[in-house]
Every structure is written in structure tokens, then in C-alpha cells.
């Protein structure tokens, strides 16, 4: 199954509005929400399609095939309003061995409605699609109808929903059965026949729409609870409209010392001549020590550690990032060198856990107080193993996946990497140094 989504760039505005809306709901109040354009998401899902001819008490099972279908829905809707969505389906190669003369066909899609990540609450089918112009559906051809077909999704019980969706709710539309109905044909045996395609996977949402709060245009600031010497009743209410703004933060990287000793080399820091020795432990957040070895008779590996990198992203948006590294050649104090390709990296990259999520603004290595790992967006992936520094090394890539609560790609991530130096046989004795540049973009 694959999915592609094209969203409107006003995402940050919608996000801020949603956060604001959620905050206000806690107060029992409402806020103004930004208007939201439509998003279109195309999913490729397996469908079982069947041609049904009820007047013949017969059907033709066309088997299961993958079809790319598109759900279009607005990013947000004001509380109380219906969502105007659409669901498009490609033509179905029914390949019937007979023609359907003088046929008109219309599309009849069904979408399933649920709260984000939840179970289906109800389904909506529309029969309002426009029929095709009258014509013969040739034998061995495909069947289709004009699209997209607009579907009105209710968000209140008064309009047909099974529940009232409160401000802050995230309504997902899941593609359901899609039917092409032969609404007219001169062959009475085929009148009312359909091609019905039923998804075999019902878990993937095609769209997500946020329910925005709608503040009163003229909030009430005074009222009378009782008139005269009376008591009881429903009382009276005034209103407070609360506002809050969330500003964008930063995308940062910060390194912290990794003190794991190397393997394959020793601590030569006590040596001063004929070649100055090197420790096999990193002393600070900007130095990688690979230790000391004797010029080998055959290529020899030293495995050290890059200093730990914490990437923090609180931009409050929906952008990914990448962390990569390049290296200069190793050069010795007497003009000797080792090619940068002798060093490889095997990185790891993961969402930070409580206790290792460090505050990049703190003076030292300080865990973020109250850090909630469940709010970190998924989608961070390490680069491949044993990447040579002959080129750019991919340490970590964060894609566009969002956290389902924050609706951002933000989070704190920990990147580590083993670095392996393969010392060539008979390498000239010297103390070598190279500079690695790590880029977050």
C-alpha cells in the first residue's frame, strides 16, 4: 500500500489554530479559526470488484486488484458544519464479453468516518453523482462515471452523525465501497446493474479534517439570572473568549561527549616521541579520539565513537530534516596522509527517550524536565551501515511523518555513530588529524 499527500502550505496557521482551539475547549470557550483549503490524498489499496446484475440473479467476480483512489477534504471545518469531501475511483476494467447499450452510469462512493486512529463511527454514501452521457459500454471495455462526486459528511447528530464532533476533534475519512451504477440502459436485464469495489484494507485514512471552534461574534458580557424575588432555573451566562499564540521554535543540533573507549587501539596519550600518542576516549564534545596503534602488517580496524548528537525540532511545523557528515583527509604532522575513505560510519538514530532528551538551551548536559516521549514525531531513520567518508555520510533523516497529538514533525532525537578507521598496512608513523563537518539541514 502506498500513499501520497498534497497539503496546503498554510499548515502552521491551522496547527496554531488547532492548539488554540484545544486550549480554549479546556476553558469551555471558543476561538476564531483560520479558514482551511482542501487537501487531496491518493491511496493505492486492494479492492475486490464485482459486476452485479440483479435482474439476472448473477454476478461476475472480477478479483482483487490495486486501485489508486483519492479522498479530498478540507484541512479544517468549523464546529457544527458538515465536511464537503469527495472520493474518486479509477475506471474498472470489467471486460464483460457483452456490450451494455444506451447506458448511463453514475458513481456512488462510500466513506467511513472515524476519529483519528479510532474505529469507524459511521459511513456516508452519496447517490448524488452525475450520470455519464448516454452511450454504449463496449464489450471488453472499462466502466466509469463522472467524478469527483461530492460527499457531505455530517459532524453533528442533528445532521446525521452518530455523535457531535467537538472543537479539536480530528475527523478521518477512510475510503469505503465504491460503486458504479448503471442507472439506465435499453437492456432491461442489465438495468440497475453495478460494479461494486470493496476495499480489502480498511485501516488507512484518506484525509484528516480538524474541527475548529467558532467564537461568538458578539460575546455576552452581562445577563440577568433572576428577575425579582425568584430562584432556580437555568441561570444566566456571560462569555470569555480566550486567545493564545504558539510561535515557531528552532531546529538545532548539539553534541555531547561520548566516552566509550575504542576497540582495536590503545590509549597512547602518555607517548611523546618519536610520535605523539593519542587517547582512545573522546575528551570533549568536539573531539573524536581513535587511539594509538603500531603501523600494521595488514590493514587493521579501529572502532571508535562519534560524539552523541541531539537534534531538537520545535519549529512547530511539518518539515523533515537531515543530518549528514563530510570529512577531510587525515594529514600527519610531518606531511603524511591517509585518505578519508579509510573511515566509515555506522549511525543509529532514534526518538529520544526520557532521560536522554537534552535541553539544547541549557549550559550543560541537562535532561528536559517533563519531557514526554509520546509527543515526538516518528519517522527518523539512520543512514546505512559502513558508509565511507569518501563521500557525504547520511547520519539521520527525519521524514514528514507527524505526531498524532501535536500534528507536527517535531521532537528530540538522538544520533550516534560508530566510526571505523581501517589503517592501511605499513602506514607511515605520524599523528594524524582530520576534520569532520556535520550539517543539519
Amino acid at each position, binding site marked *: 500500500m502506498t500513499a501520497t499527500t498534497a497539503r496546503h502550505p498554510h499548515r502552521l496557521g491551522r496547527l496554531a489554530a488547532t492548539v488554540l482551539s484545544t486550549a480554549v475547549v479546556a476553558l469551555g470557550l471558543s476561538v476564531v479559526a483560520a479558514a482551511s483549503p482542501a487537501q487531496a490524498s491518493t491511496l493505492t489499496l486492494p479492492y475486490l470488484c464485482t459486476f452485479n446484475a440483479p*435482474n439476472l*440473479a448473477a*454476478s*461476475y467476480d472480477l478479483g482483487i486488484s490495486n486501485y489508486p483512489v483519492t479522498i479530498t477534504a478540507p484541512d479544517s471545518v468549523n464546529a457544527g458544519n458538515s465536511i464537503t469531501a469527495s472520493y474518486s475511483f479509477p475506471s474498472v476494467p470489467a471486460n464483460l464479453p457483452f456490450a451494455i447499450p444506451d447506458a448511463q452510469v453514475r458513481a456512488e462512493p462510500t466513506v467511513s468516518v472515524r476519529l483519528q486512529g479510532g474505529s469507524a463511527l459511521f459511513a456516508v454514501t452519496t447517490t448524488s453523482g452525475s450520470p455519464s452521457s448516454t452511450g454504449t459500454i463496449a464489450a471488453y471495455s472499462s466502466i466509469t462515471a463522472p467524478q469527483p462526486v461530492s460527499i457531505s459528511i455530517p459532524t453533528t447528530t442533528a445532521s446525521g452523525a452518530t455523535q457531535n464532533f467537538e472543537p479539536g476533534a480530528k475527523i478521518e475519512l477512510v475510503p469505503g465501497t465504491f460503486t458504479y451504477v448503471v442507472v439506465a440502459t435499453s437492456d432491461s*436485464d442489465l438495468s440497475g446493474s453495478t460494479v461494486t469495489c470493496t476495499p480489502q484494507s480498511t485501516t488507512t485514512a484518506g484525509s484528516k479534517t480538524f474541527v475548529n471552534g467558532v467564537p461568538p461574534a458578539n460575546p455576552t458580557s452581562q445577563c440577568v439570572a433572576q428577575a425579582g424575588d425568584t430562584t432556580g432555573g437555568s441561570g444566566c451566562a456571560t462569555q470569555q473568549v480566550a486567545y493564545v499564540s504558539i510561535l515557531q521554535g528552532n531546529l538545532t543540533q548539539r553534541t555531547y561527549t561520548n566516552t566509550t573507549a575504542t576497540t582495536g587501539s590503545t590509549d597512547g596519550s602518555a607517548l611523546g616521541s618519536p610520535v605523539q600518542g593519542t587517547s582512545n576516549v573522546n575528551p570533549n564534545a568536539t573531539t573524536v579520539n581513535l587511539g594509538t596503534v603500531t603501523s600494521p602488517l595488514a590493514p587493521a580496524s579501529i572502532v571508535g565513537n562519534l560524539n552523541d548528537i541531539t537534534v531538537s525540532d520545535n519549529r512547530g511545523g511539518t518539515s523533515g530534516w537531515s543530518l549528514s557528515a563530510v570529512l577531510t583527509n587525515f594529514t600527519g604532522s610531518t606531511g603524511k596522509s591517509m585518505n578519508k575513505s579509510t573511515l566509515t560510519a555506522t549511525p543509529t538514530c532514534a526518538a529520544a527517550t526520557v532521560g536522554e532528551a537534552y535541553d539544547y538551551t541549557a549550559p550543560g548536559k541537562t535532561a528536559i524536565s517533563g519531557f514526554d516521549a509520546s509527543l515526538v514525531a516518528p519517522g527518523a531513520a539512520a543512514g546505512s551501515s559502513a558508509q565511507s567518508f569518501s563521500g557525504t555520510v547520511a547520519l539521520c533523516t527525519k521524514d514528514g511523518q507527524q505526531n498524532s497529538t501535536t500534528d507536527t514533525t517535531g521532537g528530540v532525537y538522538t544520533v550516534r555513530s560508530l566510526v571505523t578507521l581501517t589503517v592501511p598496512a605499513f602506514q607511515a608513523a605520524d599523528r594524524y588529524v582530520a576534520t569532520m563537518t556535520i550539517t543539519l539541514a
Partner: protein
Amino acid sequence: MALRRRSMLIALGAIGLMAMPLLAGAAPLPSSTTTPTGFLRFCAEAQITIANIDTAKLVENGGQFQIANTAYRDESDFVFSKSAVSTSAKKILTTSYVQYEDGSSTAQKLIRCKMRTGESLNKGAWPSGAGYGTGRFVVEPSWGFGSAGNGLSTSPNTDGTCQQINQTTLTNVWGSLSSGQKASAAYNPDNSTIVTDTDTVVGVGPSWTPPVAAVTVSGGIAHIPSRALVATTSGNASVAPYFEGAHYCTLVAPDFLRRVILGQVAPS
């Protein structure tokens, strides 16, 4: 509408009757399977002959029962499918699969039908716990309609044969030809240069599924064979009910038979 369709089919059968006497109990099979009725209902109509259905009990004749068919495009799906009944809807459910001469699947050659035995139609529910398929191949765990199915088959102890279906197809196809076409035909049932063969009966699916010829030639005579699978409900108790009450046929497609008779394609 369904009544009109059946009237048309009866008329088609009558055309065949004028050319050659129909076998007793033969169903009014379509003479072409490139029509909606022919393609979608060929096996449903064949079921009438196989189980000796009392057509007066069918919906189109004012009765309560109906024969519904599901055709399958995919052969492996068809293999998974089983003939069955829907007791609440009073439907006999047949399945079908068409094999083609050509890679583009436009020239039909052979039709495989999965039908019910006549004797199964008044049998009841399977023993509790018996399996009944998976996914879209789930069937109702019942051999037949129980006592409601009494009399639905006029001869429940003796099923019709696949050969009868093929013979009716041969009769219908020959009857649909013009005098000129008959005069120049490569094979002529009137002089027995094309005949139907008795069924080759097997007892289990793996013996029925392998490829079979639609028409063969022996000594200058074209033969229309059929491989039948018959698994009655009175059989071995070790056989799962899912496989019982089945009467399957491989049948020549009328359009292929027409091309063979006219010499347009070689028997195969």
C-alpha cells in the same frame, strides 16, 4: 423481466427442439455465452438439468426458489468457490469460470460449472462445527433447504449429466445455423460427425480441476467430452460437508462449438 428472459430462453430452446429432439429435462440453455444471460447464467440454467429442478418452483414461474450464479474471472478464485445454498433467500448458488482460446480472453472455449446435486436440495444443516470456507468463499453450512426443498428436484436420486448439457448446447448451436452454414459445416450432428460423450466422473476437486479439451477428434468424428465431479451427501462420513452435494461439469462453450462446427477453428 426475468419471466421475459426465461420466455426468450424457452423460445431458443424451441428452436433447438425443431432441429433435434431435446433430451427429457434439458434446460433452455443460452446458445451464446457472449450475451449477458449466456455469460452470467449459463451454469444457473445448467443446474436445472443437473438437479432435475421442478421449474414451477422457480421465482420466474411463480415459485419461491431462485438459482443465482457467480462467474469468476480468476481461476484460482473459482477453484476456491463452492456451489451452495442460501436457505433464507431460497437460492441455489452456482459458480462458473470461462476458459478462453486466446490470451486476450475474448474467445470463449470451455465453461466450468459448480452446481448442486438434486439429492442435496432437501438435506438440512451440516453437523455443528463443520467448516465452511474463508473470506468471500464462505458458504452457508447447509447442504440444502431441508424439508422446504422437498420436490424441488423431480428426480433427486438420479442427477442429469454434463453430457445432457453439452447435447443441448450442440442442439441449440446447430439449430441457430442457417441452411447455408449447415450445408458447409465441417461437422454435422445430423450425420453424427460430431457427438457428445458420456461423462468422465471423478470424485474429488484435484481430479476435476486439470485442463480438459472442449472438443476432441477421433476417426474423423468430433467428440464433446465432459469431466464431471459428483459428491453426494450420502457419501463417506469422513468427507467434509463443505465438499458434499456438489455436481461439477466441464462444458463446451456454445460460441466455440459454433466455430468448430463451421470449421473456423480446429477442435481442441
